[in-house]
Structures are given as structure tokens and as C-alpha cells.
């Protein structure tokens, strides 16, 4: 059955869009609005290509065909293609493809699955100037097809296994098997005119070639394509609303390509992601942009310089503190636990692994000042990374806290320790006083996961903590597993996690705060995706994993009381957009989440065996 395709008209009006996608979101929407009437596809319009929405199916198929052809051409090493190039204006994608295909012979067999992972790549590869060539000998698709088939299926599996938004991905090129297959003269040298009129390729014969079915779908009437069944493969037709889905699909495909070390494919996909991301709005756009950047860094091996300017990271941290309740939640819940542990003690000592600006401690000092019987003597040891500008950052913070303490009449003592890594610490450095005199609490907010980058570091730190003989150890960590051995798993997990996180930021009021918070999170994304080995410090792990680690190390869980829960809930109520946030209790630990997805967890621990004698 000869498929009659809509004749592809050359565009009467020259493309008014320039090749480069517009930078401003408003501009994109304006252009898209202008495009609506012509029935042009909006996504491609952003890229500068005018394609009628009704022609999308055929354009997609032809792109796939073209890509197959060109892939195999490269394998055969046909260099004469490169020598003579004629440049056609690719903005009228349909006719350009026709002319391309007419110059390169159509393949005899065609694997529809092969295009799954590479359809996106086709957009990039086919932008090369078409070459004039006469004939091509029989193209052997087998190896390429199998590889693509595998990758296509893998993409399918990965995408369908993921939950949340990824479940919705329909965007794989699936061809309905109901339509009758075509037969085609599998002669290698077809004349250009033949090719122009018939576009289907099929081979049921030929043992070496896989029995691929490539029946063309009926010409679509509308932009959205029909619902595919499980065993079929709809053509990738992009509704403007489905750009987001396609974007996620592209991200996953790119990560998969990176995992398989298929860097060419990954490179092509990353570029596409960049364009797709611009067409999105809001949180999705930002997340996609950060992930795309991280992927690009990984692909091009352009790793981010790890040690940040300290003052800049401080600023980012502060903005993150202001914009959303995560850090506040962490501080409040940890403080409540520490307060309860310090009940009745006359001298208390807090060792803070995550000193930063010291934002956690004014509230604790105030609470201690107001407790029954008056405040204890409060001693604080702050540990932080070295600052790069020769200023003694920790000392400044200590000074401010001292001033604060003086205001509210709390006896205060401070010491700051600079350490590149917590594993460099020793209990002897800290000038600990006997535990009858001084009660110790250890606090760590988003610091412990960094130790997982070096083997043995976390255990050393745990043993040092045990030497401190704390009444309580409070730990706040991200609730996600970004430390799995498989890159793709980490990528998927972090994509979900940071999408949720960025979503929750959307409701915030101050745009400057929001932007800075996003940069702050973007750095984490970059680290999770682009770095490896000791550089990858954002090794988040879930509560279950931390529980295992801590109980193995000799700590047992302390339940956070209902006071902490109530305070946390009220804190959230005060935040704009407080509807999405929720506090959950999980076996004594408190989790803060956005729309039922837990994002950070506060937990408290004490030593399982508290020995009274001082151990070596």
C-alpha cells in the first residue's frame, strides 16, 4: 500500500526566526504565538526551523532515515561525501530532508528501534551540509541496529520504571504494527526520483537483516499523536505541551549515553536539551538547564573548580536560608533536640561541624537563656573549611555570636577550627573537658555525606565523635540516594530530587533570593552529575542508609519529641506557599518534604554504650 504523504510545500515565506533560539522566555512565547496560526511546530520554531505540525510525522521519519543512512555511511568511510558539500537552507526542514535523502540512497533495511535513542541525535548530525553522492552500496545495518535497538529499549525501560513525571513519557518513536508492511526494492542504487516518491523501506527477506517492520503511520491530522499500545512505537510528535516530557526523555537519554560512554550521542543530546529547556517555563527549565550543564561538563571533562570563593558560597548559603524553610527546619529541630538533651546541665558544649554563618546558634542561646533556672555556660566549637581570602571567617562568626550572647546575658565561649575535611579532626584537639563538668552535643547539617567520598573517612569521624562522649549527636541530611554505584541511577534520583526542590522554591517571594538559592542548588547538581571520585562530595544517602551506618558505628536513635514536630509545623505555616511543605515523622526522625516527597531528615543519636571511664 502506497502511503500517500502530504506533499511538502516549500515554505513561501522565508524563516523570520534567526537560527539561534531566542534567549528571553517572553520572546519565545511571542514567536510561538505568532507561529500558532501557520500551524508550525512551536518547538522547532524555537530552533529556527519551520515545519508544519501536520508534517511532523514524516519529518521525523525522514530524519530517522537520514540518520541511519549517515551513520552507516560513516562506518563505510565514504570520504567523498565530505569533499563536495552543498549547503541548503535547513530551515525548511521537510524539503531539505527530501533533498538530503535523494542524494544519499535509501537503506535497504531499517530498524525502527534504532532511531529511538538517536532520533534526537539525528537533528544534530543532519545539520551538516548535505553532500552530493551518487550511489552507495548495500548498507549493513545489523550492528548499528542492534546497538541502537538495545539503547532504545533501555531508554524505554529506564523511562518507564521511573516514577513521578517520567511515567508520562510517551515520546518514543513507535510504529504501529497494524499497518501492512511494505516491500521495497532493496536494490542499493535507486535513482533519486524513485526515492522522492516513495518513502517507506521494508525488508522481510534477507537473513542478515533483522526482520524489522517499518510501516508508516497514517498521516496525522492533529498535532498530538494517537495512543500507542505497549507493543507499538508512536512517532515522536511534539505537542507544545509535551515539550516537558520530551525534555525529561532527552535528559534520561543523554545520561544513559554518558553511562555507556557514547559521548557523541550524549553531546548531541545535550545540545538538544539546551534548546528544549529554553522552551520550558519555571522550575523545569531551571532544573533542566542545570542538569544539562552538568552533563555537558561531564561529557567535555570540564570539571568545576571545587573550592569556591568562600564569601560567595556564604552568600549563596544565606539566600538559601532565607528563601525556603529547609535550613530553618534543620536548625529548629536540631536545636530542640539539643535543648532537651541539655536539660539540667550547668555547662554545655556544642561542637558544630557545619558552622557556616552560625545561624543555628542564636535561637539555641535564646532558648537556653529562657529556660527554667537560667542559662548554662555555653561553649561553642565551630568547624569549617579554610577561607581563601585570608580572613578568619570562623573567628568573625564567633565574634558575632559572642556579641549576641552578651546581649542576652549568656556566658559564652567560642573556638573555631579550620579543617579541610572533618576526617582531619581529632578529639584531642578540641580541648574537651570531663563529661561530668560539661555536656557535649555534636551537630552536623549537610556535612556528613561529604565524607563518603573518601573511604574510611566516615568511620574515622564516627570514632572521633564517640571519643567526644556526646550527650547527643544531631544529624541533618538530604533524603535521597545520590550515592549509588550506577551513574544513571544517581542521575535519575537527583533529577527527581532537585526537580522537587526547585518546585518548592517557585513559590518564594524574593526573586533575588530565589535565584541565589537556585545557584546554590545548581552547584550541588553539578557535583552529583559531573564529578567523580574524591571530587564528588555530594554523596547524599537516605535515612535508612544513615541508620545502618550509625547503628553499626555504635549509635542508637533518640526520638525527636513532639515539641520539635509542632515547632516545625508552625514554622512551615509561616512560610509563603506553606501548603506544599509537610513535616513527617519517621521512627523518631523528622522529615521535611514538598508535596509528600521527603527532602531532608533530622535525626538524633546517642552512644549506645556510654562508658564512664575515659577510653583511649
Amino acid at each position, binding site marked *: 500500500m502506497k502511503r500517500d504523504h502530504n506533499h511538502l510545500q516549500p515554505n513561501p515565506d522565508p524563516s523570520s526566526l534567526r537560527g539561534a533560539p531566542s534567549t528571553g522566555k517572553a520572546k519565545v512565547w511571542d514567536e510561538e504565538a505568532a507561529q500558532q496560526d501557520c500551524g508550525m511546530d512551536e518547538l522547532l520554531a524555537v530552533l529556527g526551523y519551520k515545519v508544519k505540525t501536520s508534517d511532523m510525522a514524516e519529518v521525523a521519519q525522514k530524519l530517522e532515515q537520514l540518520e541511519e543512512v549517515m551513520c552507516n555511511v560513516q562506518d563505510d568511510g565514504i570520504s567523498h561525501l565530505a569533499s563536495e558539500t552543498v549547503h541548503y537552507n535547513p530551515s525548511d526542514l521537510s524539503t531539505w530532508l527530501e533533498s538530503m535523502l535523494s542524494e544519499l540512497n535509501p537503506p535497504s533495511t531499517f530498524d525502527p528501534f534504532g532511531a529511538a535513542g538517536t532520533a534526537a541525535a539525528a537533528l544534530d548530525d543532519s545539520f551538516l551540509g548535505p553532500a552530493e553522492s551518487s550511489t552507495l552500496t548495500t548498507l549493513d545495518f545489523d550492528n548499528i541496529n542492534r546497538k541502537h535497538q538495545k539503547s532504545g529499549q533501555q531508554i524505554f525501560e529506564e523511562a518507564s520504571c521511573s516514577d513521578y513525571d517520567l511515567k508520562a513519557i510517551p515520546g518514543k518513536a513507535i510504529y504501529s504494527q497494524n499497518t501492512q508492511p511494505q516491500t521495497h526494492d532493496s536494490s542499493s542504487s535507486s535513482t533519486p526520483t524513485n526515492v522522492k516518491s516513495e518513502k517507506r523501506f521494508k525488508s522481510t527477506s534477507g537473513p542478515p537483516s533483522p526482520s524489522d517492520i517499518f510501516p508508516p503511520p497514517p498521516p496525522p491530522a492533529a498535532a498530538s499523536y494517537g495512543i500507542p499500545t505497549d507493543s507499538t512505537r508512536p512517532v515522536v510528535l511534539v505537542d507544545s505541551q509535551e515539550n516537558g516530557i520530551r525534555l525529561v526523555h532527552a535528559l534520561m537519554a543523554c545520561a544513559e549515553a554518558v553511562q555507556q560512554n557514547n559521548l557523541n550521542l550524549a553531546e548531541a543530546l545535550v545540545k538538544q536539551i539546551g534548546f528544549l529547556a529554553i522552551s520550558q517555563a519555571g522550575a523545569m527549565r531551571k532544573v533542566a538547564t542545570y542538569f544539562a550543564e552538568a552533563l555537558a561538563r561531564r561529557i567535555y571533562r570540564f570539571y568545576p573548580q571545587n573550592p569556591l570563593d568562600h564569601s560567595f558560597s556564604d552568600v549563596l548559603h544565606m539566600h538559601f536560608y532565607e528563601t525556603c524553610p529547609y535550613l530553618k527546619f534543620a536548625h529548629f529541630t536540631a536545636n530542640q533536640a539539643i535543648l532537651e538533651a541539655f536539660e539540667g546541665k550547668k555547662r554545655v558544649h556544642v561542637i558544630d561541624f557545619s558552622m557556616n*554563618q552560625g545561624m543555628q546558634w542564636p535561637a539555641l542561646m535564646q532558648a537556653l537563656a529562657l529556660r527554667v533556672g537560667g542559662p548554662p555556660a555555653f561553649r561553642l566549637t565551630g568547624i569549617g573549611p579554610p577561607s581563601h581570602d585570608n580572613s578568619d571567617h570562623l573567628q568573625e562568626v564567633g565574634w558575632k555570636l559572642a556579641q549576641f550572647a552578651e546581649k542576652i546575658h549568656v556566658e559564652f565561649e567560642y573556638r573555631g577550627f579550620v579543617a579541610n575535611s572533618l576526617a582531619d579532626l581529632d578529639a584531642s584537639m578540641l580541648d574537651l573537658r570531663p563529661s561530668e563538668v560539661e555536656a557535649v552535643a555534636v551537630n552536623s547539617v549537610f556535612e556528613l555525606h561529604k565524607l563518603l567520598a573518601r573511604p574510611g573517612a566516615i568511620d574515622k569521624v564516627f570514632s572521633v565523635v564517640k571519643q567526644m562522649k556526646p550527650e547527643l549527636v544531631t544529624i541533618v541530611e538530604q533524603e535521597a540516594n545520590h550515592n549509588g554505584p550506577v551513574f544513571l541511577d544517581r542521575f535519575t534520583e537527583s533529577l527527581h530530587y532537585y526537580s522537587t526542590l526547585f518546585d518548592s522554591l517557585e513559590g518564594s517571594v524574593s526573586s533575588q533570593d530565589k535565584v541565589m538559592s537556585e545557584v546554590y542548588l545548581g552547584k550541588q547538581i553539578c557535583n552529583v552529575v559531573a564529578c567523580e571520585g574524591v571530587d564528588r562530595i555530594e554523596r547524599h544517602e537516605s535515612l535508612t542508609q544513615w541508620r545502618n551506618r550509625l547503628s553499626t558505628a555504635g549509635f542508637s536513635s533518640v526520638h525527636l519529641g513532639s515539641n520539635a514536630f509542632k515547632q516545625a509545623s508552625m514554622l512551615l505555616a509561616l*512560610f509563603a*506557599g506553606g501548603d506544599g511543605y509537610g513535616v513527617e515523622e519517621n521512627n523518631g526522625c523528622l522529615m521535611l518534604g514538598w508535596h509528600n516527597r521527603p527532602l531532608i531528615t533530622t535525626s538524633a543519636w546517642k552512644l549506645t554504650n556510654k562508658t564512664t571511664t575515659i577510653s583511649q
Partner: protein
Amino acid sequence: MKRISPDSPSPQPNLKRVKEDPEPETGGFMTLDENLLYEVLKHVDARTLAMASCVSKLWLKTARDERLWELICTRHWANIGCGTQQLRSVVLPLGGFRRLHSRYLWPLSKPQAASPLPWAPPKIINSKPPARWGKDEVHLCLSLLSIQYYEKMHFTSRRR
């Protein structure tokens, strides 16, 4: 003419008399002694007290008295276990009761209206006196007050 809040107690005789007099300078509340005004304002609710500070400079000065706001705050909150003096020694240096109330206690007592700014108190619709504040609310507000104070202190001295 200055309106007497319905919540204030039955005014003393001299106040009733001068109510007729329109001229601000020569009589009425304006000649009211600070101390008397203070005594009167001791009994009003938060809203009234806030409105009173809009009347005139004298009223502003009096209505901003921390002791009045301390009364407003502590009148309705649960016993948090510390003594008055202890409370004062903490709250006053950190910004005072008026700020504690307007920034934190008052918004917290409102139903969860999503206010445009995180810390701005939402529009005052009803004139009900605020509900009783539990221990946790009070502690939360005190913590927020102290954080806010620290932030200002910390960042005004740094480059910002």
C-alpha cells in the same frame, strides 16, 4: 475627633467631658497626662494599642512603651516557665515585645492566609482578640526574633 475604642474600660469622668471639645490643643485626650494614658492603654487589646500609636506624637510615644506590649504578649500566652525579669532580659535586647508581637506572634495567630511577604502580618480582618498562644508558638516566635536580630547584626557589619 478621636474615637475611643469599644474595648477600653469605661473612661474616667474627665475623659467623657472633654470628648465634646474638637480642638486638639486645648483639651480632650491631648492634654491627657502620659501616665494616665499609659494606665488606660494597659487595658486595651493589641489592635487598639497599635491604632493608638497613630493618634499623635504623645500617643505614639506612650503606645510604643515596651511594658504595654509586654502585657499584650504575656497576657495570652502559656506559661513558658521563665520569670518576668528573665524574659525581659532576653526579649528587650533582641528587639522588644512590640516587635515580637507584630512580626511573629500576631501573624502566627492568624489563620493560614498565604501572605505575599513571608514576614508581613496579613490584613487584619476581624477584631477578635488573638487566641491563646501555646508554648511552642511562643518559643518559635522567640527563636525567630533572635535569628532576625542576629542576621541584622551579622550582616550590617559585613559588606552587604
